[in-house]
């Protein structure tokens, strides 16, 4: 009986983490899937959200900035706003240029943010991170606290999904597709491409911060190395590419699927003898990387291929061999 209860709790945690990653993947989907923007610093925006919300909600502590004890609604909103402002600044510099530059700059901003977290000890407690972060529903009895938290995340995903689907089918979404596929003709149609790109980039980064806020409260702790910045950025990319970029359901499915594989494989390898367990951890990362490469080459459309929002009067890709959808 105990064992079943353990499995039950494990599945809940799997779904919760998968759900948080789904929010990240949806954020990346706005940027990459719909608009063709390469964000290589997901972990940075994620961390921004986590720290902002953590600092705003924790009880006073001598170790770090805090003691505001604000309600979650405020802290979550603040997390998203701060991340959005930073994204706007990065976008101002890079969105004019080709995607490569944005990728470099986002990797950079994530790294800078990590430096700040490590060095500004007065605010962040440095490498030791912020702990004792409150968690929604934590006062409820044992399985219900976890279940309610999971319910909250799933509800948020549903809301985001519906919003994104509406946006995708709106004129805004169609302009996005046009920009991604043929910048010149979109420009000729008098669209301010940079503005649309900026909207997508900022919106995506705000979702990433939201996911960050969730993880801080879920784990009740956040530190600069809580997750290796690259591995987590990378996982989100794999999730989106495997699930199917430019498809919101693909992003969600990819997140749950890859998180399950990632987490289950960790359980398997952790049973190995210590020395071997540490080494096989690297093999897991390697294999995830390989999975990405295989999908890119063999199944570039992912599990759920893109579904066009309403037919437009433009020639669609009919041969389907090369995916022109990714010209930026």
């Amino acid at each position, binding site marked *: 009986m105990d064992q079943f209860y353990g499995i039950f709790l494990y599945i809940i945690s799997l779904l919760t983490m998968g759900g948080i990653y789904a929010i990240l993947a949806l954020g990346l989907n706005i940027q990459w899937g719909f608009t063709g923007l390469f964000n290589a610093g997901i972990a940075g925006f994620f961390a921004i959200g986590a720290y902002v919300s953590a600092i705003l909600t924790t009880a006073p502590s001598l170790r770090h900035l805090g003691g505001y004890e604000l309600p979650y609604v405020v802290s979550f909103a603040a997390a998203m706003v701060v991340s959005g402002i930073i994204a706007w600044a990065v976008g101002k510099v890079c969105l004019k240029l080709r995607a490569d530059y944005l990728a470099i700059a986002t990797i950079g901003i994530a790294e800078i943010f990590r430096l700040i977290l490590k060095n500004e000890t007065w605010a962040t407690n440095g490498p030791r991170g912020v702990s004792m972060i409150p968690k929604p529903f934590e006062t409820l009895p044992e399985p219900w606290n976890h279940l309610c938290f999971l319910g909250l995340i799933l509800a948020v995903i549903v809301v985001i999904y519906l919003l994104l689907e509406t946006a995708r089918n709106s004129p805004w979404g169609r302009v996005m597709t046009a920009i991604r596929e043929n910048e010149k003709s979109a420009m000729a149609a008098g669209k301010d491409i940079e503005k649309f790109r900026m909207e997508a980039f900022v919106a995506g980064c705000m979702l990433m911060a939201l996911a960050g806020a969730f993880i801080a409260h879920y784990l009740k702790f956040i530190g600069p190395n809580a997750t290796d910045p690259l591995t987590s950025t990378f996982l989100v990319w794999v999730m989106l590419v495997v699930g199917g970029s430019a498809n919101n359901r693909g992003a969600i499915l990819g997140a749950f699927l890859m998180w399950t594989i990632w987490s289950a494989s960790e359980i398997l390898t952790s049973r190995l003898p210590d020395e071997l367990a540490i080494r096989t951890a690297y093999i897991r990362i390697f294999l995830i990387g390989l999975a990405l490469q295989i999908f890119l080459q063999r199944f570039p459309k992912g599990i759920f291929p893109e579904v066009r929002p309403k037919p437009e009067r433009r*020639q669609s*890709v*009919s041969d389907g061999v090369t995916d*022109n959808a990714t010209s930026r």
Partner: protein
Amino acid sequence: MSNSELQTVLELDQIIGGYGDTQILHGVSMRVDPGEIVVIIGPNGAGKSTAMKAVFGLLNLSGGKVRLNGEDITNMPPDQVVHHGVCYVPQTSNIFPSLTVEENLEMGAFVRTDDFRPRLQELYDIFPPLAEKRRQAAGTLSGGQRQMVAMAKAMMLEPQILLLDEPTAGLSPKYRGEIFAIVKTVNATGTPILMVEQNAKQALKIANRGYVLVDGKNKFEGSGHDLLEDAEVAEMFLGGGAPP
């Protein structure tokens, strides 16, 4: 003029194709016989450049054949086409601007394994301004001189046929005359030339034959002289009225 015992050098046979899914050429045919200068004229966007790119395997052809000396070279990748002795001067970005003039010509000889020095000297004789500026970055030259670099670069291989896409576009009348003179000189050495031109009158004067392309289809064809005389062609492309 064309010599019927000799084989046609280059032939486009009912070419259909375009970029991606957009079809631009709807059955274009033309040929170049040994020793000829053939000119393609037509309005902007008619598909003149596209027809040239078709020879070079830069297009998705959905129909038709390209033949070189009778051999089928349809959809052959560009570097192979060069190996077969077809050289091409595109309409735009036809030089390597950061390389010196001499380096540009050297690149033109990339596929050669023998000593290209003698050929280099020959070309410097045909294009004297280039000899002077051989050490200068090609991007710093004037428009006319760049065009010379582009042509000289394409001729490093002693090609079997030379394709020129609007070699005189945007040039002053002085340079225009010079380029046409060079085209004639090169042709006199036995190299057939297929050339797209906007300066139709001047071009048709030196041409053996010409094609008029409109909306991706052959509209007229004939000897340079006939096209110059043709009232309809004259009205459309030669600035109105019959030629003097």
